[in-house]
């Protein structure tokens, strides 16, 4: 499998903390296999019931997850920044087309793993 970094995420990560939307851009990793794409997303402070996925196109996966509690910059040690966060959000470009109707996901130890079958 080949690991692919999303260029969109790289740009987004220049901040990664969207104060206006109270959203955090999570770390993620994409592995492209022969038959499927496996995407993992690191989601600390998230309950699996709060994870929502949607594919607006067959090469984009959008993830949204509310956090179990409000997180502030202050508690993360950044006193000079103001802002609080209540969710994660990412719009992830998948490098190959996938079948968005057959998404399989599971959540373990705060990491979401999504299996997306490749379109032939």
């Amino acid at each position, binding site marked *: 499998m080949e690991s692919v*970094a999303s260029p969109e995420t790289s740009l987004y990560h220049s901040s990664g903390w969207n104060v206006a939307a109270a959203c955090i851009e999570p770390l993620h990793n994409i592995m492209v296999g022969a038959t499927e794409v496996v995407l993992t997303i690191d989601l600390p402070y998230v309950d699996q019931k709060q994870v929502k996925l949607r594919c607006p196109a067959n090469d984009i996966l959008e993830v949204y997850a509310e956090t179990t509690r409000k997180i502030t910059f202050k508690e993360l040690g950044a006193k000079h920044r103001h802002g609080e966060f209540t969710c994660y959000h990412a719009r992830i470009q998948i490098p190959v087309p996938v079948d968005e109707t057959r998404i399989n996901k599971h959540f373990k130890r705060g990491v979401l793993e999504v299996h997306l079958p490749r379109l032939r």
Partner: protein
Amino acid sequence: MCEPFNYSLILHEHQFLDQLEGCVAMSKRLSEKDGFRIVETSPIPKKAVMINGLPDVGLVGLLAASHIISSLKLAEVGSLESDLLPPMIVLHGGIPKSPVRIFAGKSLVVVISETAIPVSLLRPLANDLVEWAQSNSTELVLSLGGMAVANRQDIDAPKVFAAISEKKLESKLNGAAEVLEEGYIVGVYGLLLRRCAEASVPAITLLTQSYYNYPDPVAAAASLNAVNRILGLSIDVSELLRRGEEIRLRSKDMMHRTQEELAKMNKSHEYDLPPLYG
């Protein structure tokens, strides 16, 4: 038939030699400038164990070494400076500090970096650290890192592997880690281990199963448990586990910067099968 003597070639050779001399002089100047200056602000313990917690896979080493520093209340004793590091400082307690610092106490010297170190600086960093370790008669260089595994979510207790600079160190492991016999190590820890082997400085690199690009406090705790067994310490890792979610979120940006450097150094080479001939 003999070729006519080529005078223009001689001229070119002279020019080449002049240029070569210039290049050698320049490379000497550059090598002095390219390396790290190790600034000692307090006496460094001799014959100590040097622990390296530099940013790498899963930030395992950095998280583990930071936990050692806070648990044992080690004092800051110096820093590493380089003109080629990103132009930044970190503020701690309102005081500007170098992002690459040295802590010491209880016969330990701990080196951590709070910034991702550019790939081009890893070799000079390894060389300068080993030279400095030698000058302090360091008993053991113990480097803490991660070993990325694809199925990390399914692993309850991450396993610890060890790469050692000399065979006799196997007994020092005290069953804490399985020795790696074949394979590749990409990054500063590989360079450190090799340089230590060349300089006859005993060195162990602990590589703990971890996430590749997510901060992994559970792997850091497993690494620390191995350190406890090897050095006969009793550092409590429960705080590291209890604050796991907070640590993952606080380290997110650091992990992202580190991931960019991991990609540049071809870290995925570590997944390759070992070379055919030993």
